[in-house]
């Protein structure tokens, strides 16, 4: 089958760029949400799907990135070009410190410590009124400046004429695409392969020369950096940064997305983000009991489709390929 030769990635990217022109403001808003959460979920998957480390506190880095970028842009007037990577770097540094302690533990203790650190981050954001705005958070994070677009539009007319939120959407799409490309390279590299050996059999991995703790810490930091970048984008998108970005229920939301889309594939979590946000949107217009529906979906997933959407699709694919090979 030639389907694998089709450049899905670039196609989706181009399609994503057409959304503001073709669809309403509301759908652009949704798409923006999806794009950011896709990055967040994919970053978590580096830990959960590729290394086998279940973190219940990934939202901590999302929150740290959001606060760092938000603070720099709002209170210190730093430009987006600097504030965005700074969010990732700050989150990465915290991941380095927290992760150092977390990777020395296994399984349930690891999960508990990630949870504890996330709650510490939440508690600091919640109470440090002077810096983080406390319970009220930091509303009105400014958009990056898009004045330069007018100059570009002189040369490339199709670039002009969009709203600020649309330009921000384009920015998110391009940045997330770049991040996903980088992550894809990382998990497809020897380093990524070493991570999967740890997931499959950490004892054996030790005995092919893999310093398991060091690799786990590296994975933790990488996951933290990209979660921080996602957080930075989200704070601006959300028009405000709030302590609940780091609360443990946020960690479970992204974990569910990752599971829904399929932890065993690279794009699974992104698909999970799309499906979950879209579903949420659909259902919330009919009923306020979204958690009930989400919980039921989760139960069905766990019992019937543990591989998530990605797993089901891959299984179907393989069956089709085998059928085609035999024909």
């Amino acid at each position: 089958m030639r389907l694998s030769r089709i450049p899905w990635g670039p196609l989706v990217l181009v399609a994503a760029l057409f959304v503001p022109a073709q669809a309403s403001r509301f759908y652009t808003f949704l798409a923006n949400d999806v794009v950011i959460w896709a990055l967040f979920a994919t970053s978590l998957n580096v830990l959960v799907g590729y290394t086998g480390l279940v973190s219940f506190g990934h939202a901590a880095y999302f929150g740290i990135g959001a606060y760092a970028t938000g603070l720099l842009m709002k209170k210190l007037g730093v430009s987006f070009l600097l504030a965005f990577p700074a969010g990732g770097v700050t989150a990465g540094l915290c991941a380095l410190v927290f992760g150092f302690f977390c990777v020395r533990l296994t399984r349930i203790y690891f999960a508990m410590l990630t949870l504890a650190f996330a709650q510490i981050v939440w508690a600091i954001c919640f109470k440090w009124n002077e810096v983080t705005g406390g319970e009220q958070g930091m509303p009105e994070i400014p958009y990056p400046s898009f004045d330069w677009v007018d100059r570009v539009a002189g040369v490339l007319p199709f670039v002009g004429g969009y709203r600020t939120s649309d330009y921000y959407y384009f920015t998110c799409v391009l940045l997330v695409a770049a991040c996903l490309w980088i992550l894809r390279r990382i998990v497809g590299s020897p380093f990524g392969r070493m991570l999967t050996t740890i997931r499959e059999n950490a004892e054996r991995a030790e005995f092919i020369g893999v310093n398991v703790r060091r690799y786990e810490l590296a994975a933790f930091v990488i996951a933290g950096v990209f979660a921080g970048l996602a957080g930075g984008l989200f704070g601006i998108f959300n028009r405000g940064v709030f302590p609940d970005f780091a609360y443990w229920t946020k960690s479970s939301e992204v974990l569910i997305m990752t599971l829904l889309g399929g932890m065993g594939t690279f794009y699974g979590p992104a698909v999970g983000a799309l499906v979950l946000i879209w579903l949420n949107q659909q259902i919330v217009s009919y009923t306020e009991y979204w958690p009930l529906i989400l919980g039921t979906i989760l139960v069905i997933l766990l019992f019937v489709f543990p591989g998530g959407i990605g797993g089901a699709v891959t299984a179907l694919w393989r069956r089709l390929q085998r059928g085609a090979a035999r024909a």
Partner: protein
Amino acid sequence: MLEVRDVRKSFDGFQAVGGVSFTVPRGSISAIIGPNGAGKTTLFNLITGHLQPDDGRVVFKERDVTGIAPHDLCRLGMGRSFQRTNIFPRLTVYENIQAAYLSHRGRGFNLFTPVERLYRPETEALLQSVGLLEKAAEVSGFLSHGNQKQLELGIALALEPEILLLDEPTAGMSATETRESIRLIERIAADRGLTLLFTEHDMEVVFSISHRITVLHQGRVIADGPPAEVRRDPEVRRVYLGESG
């Protein structure tokens, strides 16, 4: 090449290994045998760094490696296979071996090169030598027990060890599989000039290929020498066969 000096290990007051010493000369094939619970696997774990000895030293290539972490030890040239098959179940056979090369050749922290084409010739050559080349694309978790053991051997060999520690390499195999397996191991050891140290329950295997046998009983060495000598040793006979004198 490998020297174990007076190694001891206790668990909660139970002495699993109590003062074991022996030497494994370079290029030889040595076996550690003993009834169940004699401490063979514990001893292996102590040598390979999975456990820290309470006392005693492990010296490898004239270097004190007591308690060194496994991932450092295998870089020094010590390879190991495990009693319960220890492979990477959801990776393919090819990927299992390739992973070992990636790690061993120091590419582990390369974050950008796509992994598919790396070390293809080496991986395929190794798969060929352990007889698994046709199965390269299969998911290793679905292989038969014998094939998994072959894969396990392959992974250990990919690390280009100088000494190979095999923990019950023919456990769970039929007589035919055992013979083939041992022939394979012998051939590979001869081809690559490997030193072998293995534990076994199958006495036929042990006595047929070992140059040297160390017998453990309740955590202590009760005999140590060439097969003929060990076979005649009255203590060994008593422990294994219940004979007196």
